[in-house]
Structures are given as C-alpha cells and as structure tokens.
C-alpha cells in the first residue's frame, strides 16, 4: 500500500476491532472451552493470542512460535541434566535469546558504529524485547527450581496477549501457578467488573491524555532534529509534555493489560505506582516500569554484585545496569545516554542517602526531593525522545536559554491561532517566548495532564489492585473515590468510554511498541 496506513501497527488495545470483536470472542471462547477442560481453554487462548500477534504481520508469528518451542525444549532438559550441564544449557539458552534480540534490534547499530554513520531504524518484530526478557526469566526460574513444566500452560504464559507485546514482564512464578489453578476457569464476575474498570481507566489515559499531547511534542523534537532554533519555553514545554505523554501512554497500556488479564481471571503484576509522585530517583525506579526494574535488578544488577561490594562497585553496577536498561529500549545512543544518565542519578541518590543517614525527611525536604526527581526525570526524557544526541543537546541548550531563538519567530503551528484571533494570546508574546513549534495550548494541555498525574489517584489506587507491587507506601487513601460496583462508577466509566469511543478513529500507536 502506498499511502500512509495504520495496518502494519496491528490490532492494538485501543482499536474498535480489538475492543468489540477480538476481545469478546477471545474471552467467550476461553470460558466456553473451559467448561470442557482447562486444557482446552489454555490451548485456545494461546492460539487466540498468537492470532492477535499475527494481525501485525503474519510471517513474523513464526518467531514467537519458534521461541516458545526452543525455550521449552531447553527448560525441559534442566531436570534431566546434572548441575554443570544444566548450567551450560542455561547459558546457551540465555545467549540464544539475547542473540535473536541483538540480531533484529542491534545489528545495524553495531555496524553503523564501525561504518561511522547514523544507525537506521531497525524493523524489530513486535514484542521481541519483552518476550526475550520473559523467556530469560523463565529459563532462570526453571533452572533454579528444577521444576517440570507442561507445554500448554508455558505456551500460554509466554503468548498470553494482554502482556505479549508491551509487558508487564511477567515471571513464570507469578503466572504459571495461576494458569494451573482450576478455579480460574470459571467466570468470575468480580474479576470481570474490576477488569472492565481497570481496562477503561487505562484506555482513557492513553486515548484522552497521551494522544492529545503527542501532536504538541512532535514538532519541537522534529525541529530540534533539523537544527531549528527553540525558545526555552518550547524546550521545557516539549520535555514536560513528552514525560506526561509517555507516562500516560505506557501506564495506560499496562493498566489495560492488567484489566484484560482479569477478564481471564489472571492477575498480572502492576507496572506503575504513580511514579511522578516519587521523592527520589531510587523511589522513582521502584514505581516506573516496575517489571523492567525488577528484571534489571534480578538479572543484571544482583549478578554483577549489587550493593554488596562497596560503594564504588555499587556505583559501577548501577551505571552498567541502567545503561544496559537504556540500550534495551532501542538501538540508539540517545537510549544509552538516557540509561547512563539515570545510572548517574541513582549513584548520586545513593551517595546522598549515605550522607544524610536514615533520618525521616521533613515535608520541605520531601518537596525538594520530589521537585528535583521530577525535573531530573524530565531532563532525561529529552534523550529518550530526541532523534539523536545532537537534537537532545540542542533541546538541553534551549532549556538553558541558548536555543538560538531570535525573539521574533515565525509561528509554524496553528494551535494558538484561535486564541490569537480572539485576543487571548498576543502574537508578539508567541513570537518572542513560545517560538515556532510550541504553543500556549500545548502548555495548558501539558499542565493539565501533569496535574492529573500529580493529584488524581492512580488506577491501581482507585481499584485497590495490588498484584506484584514491591511495597505499598506509595498508596494514598482514596476515600470515597475508591472503586466499587456502584451506579456513580458505572456513570463515570460510561462517560470515559464514550469519550474514548468518540476518539477511536484517531490512529496512534503505543509508544512502548517500538522498544
């Protein structure tokens, strides 16, 4: 097809065909066949999950299928081999998984380093980054426990469509036992009601907030990629806006995954715990993409020695772990820089904690900690979103007031046109302060989105869903807002879904699909 199309993006959770066709059919088939036997339900849901994947690009379904077969074969040998041979096989398994990921995702990047050119945009098979980590965690788990695994539950564990393509990165120890429990194959209306609620709240985050911010973020980062001058307000505005966009996009997706899991009576772990309310970088990484943080901690940081070998070694381990974590997001120096930046921040945070001791911080210190954490996170996001290091540096310079804006910029986005015509925004103000690619509308929308993130309780707080959370100190008392099957909540959900439905035609994809 020649024209722009969304067909290659697959059937995403926020498309009408997924919500109204695929999902009801998949849930109905699962429970109808569960009446005959749980095994039939497991096989069916594995097949529907692969069909979900196939929607994106049919030939690529071979990859998860082969990955499932190969990893199962390796895992099934652990119980038959002696310790040394099993360990060797584990290493082979991990290397093979990483090699497949490296081939698809990093080959061109590595070649580009030697050739001294810019890396191209690799076509990474959907879900590869996530399933690679899921498979590695599975192999390590089975190796350690020497447990026997049946093929069908394992295949469903890997392929289960709610977490297949963008996480959360689930562990066999979390999902495997649930898949084996017979009572989960009966329809549970409590889970369906809760699942529909969490799914709708996640969908609203994605469609009503993240997607509204996307068109404001793009022009500023594109301008930076082209070396265009930027005002400080534009650079800060776009960095804040992208931070909010990414948070609502990915946490919305994770909420939807949890909600979908509940429709099948399976409880997936939460992935976000209101990270924008974190008061330190250490705290932030316990609340942002929790399943990835957990993986990096258990499979990179701890094996490297963690914090047990002194402060200097811990700093190195943190730096290495976060840099690799950055690289996992994409084959680009910007991601490496982002990971390294967070490695440095974590090191500073640990040093600060050691200096300060374990005293309970005052309210003012907590506020200062929150502000510093949030600003540092936003600055890091510039690397995450920028097309290359040059563009990131340009935006950072603009944030410092050295973006090269002349004070009489040509207005190139039309968002403020109406307010200028009505006299609410002066054209001179826009030319001098806002610049060519940002807008007052973008600023207001960003402020609104951030207020929602700061003030309104998170989905998991409202619904009191706690599966897999590392600690519960982040939760606030939501009082009367707490979800319960009631008429007011029904109205809220109906209104939210109605608003989402009216916007479903705007084709966007989840940001985390590309990682």
């Amino acid at each position: 097809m020649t024209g722009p199309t969304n067909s290659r993006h697959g059937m995403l959770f926020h498309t009408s065909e997924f919500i109204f066709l695929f999902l009801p059919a998949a849930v109905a088939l699962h429970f109808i066949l569960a009446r005959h036997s749980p095994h039939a339900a497991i096989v069916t849901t594995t097949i529907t999950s692969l069909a979900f994947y196939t929607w994106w690009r049919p030939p690529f379904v071979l990859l998860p299928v082969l990955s499932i077969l190969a990893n199962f074969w390796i895992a099934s040998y652990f119980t038959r081999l002696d310790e040394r041979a099993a360990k060797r096989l584990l290493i082979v398994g991990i290397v093979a998984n990483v090699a497949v990921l490296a081939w698809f995702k990093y080959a061109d990047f590595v070649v580009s380093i030697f050739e001294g050119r810019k890396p191209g945009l690799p076509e990474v098979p959907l879900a590869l980054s996530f399933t690679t980590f899921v498979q590695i965690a599975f192999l390590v788990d089975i190796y350690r426990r020497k447990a026997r695994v049946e093929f069908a539950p394992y295949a469903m564990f890997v392929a289960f469509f709610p977490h297949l393509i963008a996480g959360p990165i689930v562990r066999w120890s979390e999902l495997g036992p649930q898949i084996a429990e017979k009572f989960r194959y009966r329809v549970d209306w409590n889970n369906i009601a809760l699942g529909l609620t969490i799914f709708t709240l996640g969908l609203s985050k994605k469609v009503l907030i993240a997607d509204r911010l996307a068109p404001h973020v793009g022009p500023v980062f594109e301008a930076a990629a082209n070396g265009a001058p930027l005002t400080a307000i534009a650079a800060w505005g776009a960095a804040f806006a992208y931070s909010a966009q990414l948070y609502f996009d990915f946490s919305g997706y994770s909420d939807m995954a949890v909600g979908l899991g509940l429709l099948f009576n399976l409880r997936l772990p939460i992935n976000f715990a209101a990270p924008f309310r974190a008061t330190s970088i250490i705290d932030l990484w316990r609340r942002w993409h929790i399943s990835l943080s957990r993986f990096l901690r258990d499979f990179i940081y701890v094996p490297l020695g963690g914090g047990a070998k002194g402060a200097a070694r811990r700093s190195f381990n943190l730096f290495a772990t976060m840099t690799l974590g950055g690289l996992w997001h994409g084959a680009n120096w910007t991601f490496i820089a982002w990971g390294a930046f967070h490695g440095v921040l974590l090191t500073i945070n640990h040093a600060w904690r050691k200096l300060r001791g374990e005293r309970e911080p005052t309210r003012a210190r907590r506020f200062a900690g929150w502000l510093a954490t949030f600003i540092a996170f936003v600055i890091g996001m510039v690397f995450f979103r920028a097309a290359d290091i040059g563009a990131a540096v340009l935006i950072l310079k603009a944030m410092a007031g050295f973006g090269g804006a002349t004070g009489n910029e040509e207005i190139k986005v039309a968002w403020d046109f109406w307010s200028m015509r009505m006299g609410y925004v002066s054209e001179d103000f826009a030319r001098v302060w806002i610049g060519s690619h940002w807008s007052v509308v973008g600023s207001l929308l960003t402020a609104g989105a951030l207020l929602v993130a700061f003030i309104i309780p998170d989905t998991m707080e409202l619904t009191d869903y706690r599966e897999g959370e590392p600690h519960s100190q982040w939760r606030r008392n939501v009082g009367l807002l707490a979800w319960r099957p009631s008429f007011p909540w029904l109205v809220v959900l109906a209104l939210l879904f109605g608003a989402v439905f009216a916007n479903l035609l705007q084709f966007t994809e989840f940001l985390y699909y590309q990682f």
Partner: protein
Amino acid sequence: MRTRTFAFCFLAFLALLLGSTMAANVIIDPEAVFDPGRAEMRVNSNSRYLRYLEYREKGRDAEALLFGSSRGNIFERDVVAQRLGVAKVQNFSVTYGMITDHLPTLEYVIREKASRGEKLKSVVLMLDIAHFGKPPWTNINLDGFLAPEVSGEHPARFWWRYVTAFQFRAWRATIRKEVGRRVAEAPERPLRSLGAPALAGMLPAWRPPQLPLAQPAAAETKQVQRRYDVVLRPMVHAHLKLLARFVEVCRQNGVALTVMTSPLSRANASMYDAEEPRRVAHRISEIVPLWDFGIPAVLDRGEFWLDYSHFTPGVARILLDRVTGQPGAPPEELGVLRGRP
C-alpha cells in the same frame, strides 16, 4: 450493586453505543459509502471510493486517466479525451488528491486492465504545487480512504471502520443539510393550511436552518490565517519518491504520461512565498518533465476563477491545449515546460 449487575450494565452500554453508532453510520452515511447515490447530498463524501465505484461501473473501457485534486474535476472528459486522442477518459480527481492517492489508483487500474488483457494508453497527472509534500488525506480522514481493491486493505477492515466510526459532527452536518434541502424543496404553504390561523401572529417568522456558507467562510479564514499558514512540507521526500514510482510504472507499461501543475490564482499564491512553490516544481521536474503553470499573470482576471482556488472550465481547456500542443495554442507565457522531455 452486585458486581454481575455492574458488569452487565457496562457491557450493555458498550453494546448500545456500538449498535447505535453502526445504525447512525448506515442510515446517515456521511461519506456516501453505503449508498453512493446520495453522494451529492452528503457533507463528507469519500470521493476516492466513489471514483473507484465509477470506474468499476462505467469506466473500465477508458483508455486514459486524469489524476488531480478537486481542480481536476473542472476538466471536461470529452475534451480531455479529444486532446489526448483517445476514445474515453476516466477522471480520478479527488478532493485534496495527492500522489499518495494517484499512485495506488494507477497501479490498480493497470493491474485490473491487464487481468482483462487491456492496456492503458495515456495519463494526465495534475499536481497542486501548493500541497505537494504536505500531509495527505489518503487513508487518514474518513473521507479519504481508498477502496480496499486499490489500497490492498482487507475489505472487512474498510467496512468496519465506516460502520463503527463515531462521527457526531458529520452526522449532524449531514442531517442539517438533508433537512435544509427538504425544506427548500417543499412547496410553500400558508399557515392557514395548517389549521392554526390564530397562532400565525404569535409565531416568529420561521426560516430554514442556514447552512454555513463554505466559500466565504473559508476565504475569510484564509485571509486571517495567512500570517500563520507557513508552507510546511514534511513529506516532500516521500512524495517525490512516490512520483518517481508513478513515472516508472507508466514507463514500464508504455503509458504516455503528461505531468502538469495546476495554476495558482494570485489570491491563493499570496499565501505562499512565491519562490518556494517554484523550488518544489523544479525538484519535480528533475524526476519528470513538468508543465509548470505557476502563478500565471495572464489568468489574473477574476473571470478565470470560480473561487480563489479553482479555475473555470474555460481555463481547463486552455491548459489542456497548452500541454498537448494544440494548433492555435494559448499564449506562450502561460506555463513553462521544465525538465528534459
């Protein structure tokens, strides 16, 4: 409330929302895809799909194609056919038509004709230089989706989209247009005939709902918008590539290709930096010889224009005469052939 009741009520709401949306789309049909016969009465007709249907129904024997934007609709088919020396021309001009529309359509027609052992002889491609490289409508807006046979999209996906799109404004505008049309067509009846003479003095004078007048409103907006309407061509490279492919497809299939730009009126051109469209025309001419009509001074008089954007059928004929080198051709200062033939 029991959780089961809660879940049922919410699912019922979803079903109702979907069902009513589907019904509204099929009945109101703002894009005229369900009943193409109502296209004239619709506010958001999908001209791309309608052009496809037109070709399927009565254009398959065409020997030549005309591609363009809404400006291409001004050309009279018989005149185009006569100037190109073919028996019949199929017009594939569509609203805001761009190379993203034209290339898949050309490929489809060549494919379709080949399956019947026929060949295309000639193609006229008219590009709007002011829009070249800008984000297209193709497969983005609801009125811009190509027919599945043209785009390669699965028909189920195409139809699912039109059935499930929640398009409140388009529904409302279509209903208003329909009501306005019926009121305008209805014979005037004195109030007495309604059997309520006493009410006549009490009722305010009733007028049919006024449709927004597209033309003046658009012109006014453009006027004010001028300062901000910066020419942004984020997709110029992609569109040049598609154009190169278009030329290559014509070459491979032995199709005579004529490429021209549509002339810009002085009013329209004032919104752009005059040099900028010329640069784009130059880049196009590096790919294919281009009849560039630019901002022709000879067409400065208002009588040549239907509005600030569209020229008259008379001008269309003059343009055709110029590019086909008809005897007694129009003034030489109208249009220049850029690039090597």
